[in-house]
């Protein structure tokens, strides 16, 4: 069965480092950056290793609408 391929883009400037996406991503593909953004938060970063399915749970839980999701 072919896996669905997906990808996300996290806006480093909208992100407030709440780490909810980090916690909820079923494949653990998101981690917290060690570089502060302009607002003084440590934003989330997407570690694209090809396993993302575009399930969009990260975008669902992101309070800041900082994540856009691609699938196909």
């Amino acid at each position, binding site marked *: 069965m072919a896996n669905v*391929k*997906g*990808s996300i883009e996290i806006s480093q400037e*909208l992100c*407030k*480092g*709440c*780490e*909810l996406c980090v*916690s*909820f991503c079923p494949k653990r593909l998101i981690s917290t950056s060690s570089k502060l953004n302009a*607002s003084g*938060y440590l934003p989330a970063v997407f570690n694209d290793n090809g396993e993302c399915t*575009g399930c*969009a*749970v990260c*975008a*669902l*839980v992101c*309070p*800041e*609408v900082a*994540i*856009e*999701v*691609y*699938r*196909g």
Partner: protein
Amino acid sequence: MKKIYSRPKSLKKAVFHYCPGCGHSIIHRLVCEVIDEMNLQDKAIGIPPPGCAVFAYYYFDVDMAESAHGRGAAVATGVKRAFPEAIVFTYQGDGDLAAIGTAETIHAANRKENITSIFINNAVYGMTGGQMAPTTLSGQKTTTTPYGRDDNLEGYPLKMSDIIAVVKGAVYVERCAVNSPANIRKTKKAIRKAFQTQIDGLGFSLVEILSPCPTNWRMSPIEAWQWIDDVMSKEFPLGVIKDITGGKDAD
């Protein structure tokens, strides 16, 4: 690959002033998604409260008007009576709807006003710095219950949705939460159903949403979201409290 998720059209492109992990941000987005999907941007009139969400008009790209604290249901009544074609929703916190606004909320429901109240329950008064709310849990420490809420002195957590459900003119009352993907999806469905109730002219609808307030609960966002599962929803159980709308999921 094609983009399958991005900002709803009726959510303005502005950085939320809400704290990291705050429920308002999620709920604003859900309401805007529903407004987009149901094509209500032209007809919606929103009544935000004093409180953290006082700036809701910076985010919702629909006509909005401020209300005095607690008066949302009365303002919405005036709006809907004078302009019945509008889809009118109040967006109120727990102090707004269940403390100072108890009378207005109960009576708007009693008159079967065709309005929708979105009731944000975060068990605390957020904007003013974390004082006790009617929905603060027993034993919960807040800035005005520094020793923990004492039921005998400060009263019990108020189940406002259950009170409203008893009122005959309230036709759809559901309690949801935004602390997990599953709950967020259910909340969106409830908001959608509430607006549909109004469109169908069936009466007063209320969606209570347990919402995390990491700052005033003194927790991280993840801990706050967990606390809703572990503690808050035990006092405020999720689910449909009343549904006499006659739809396929109705009582």
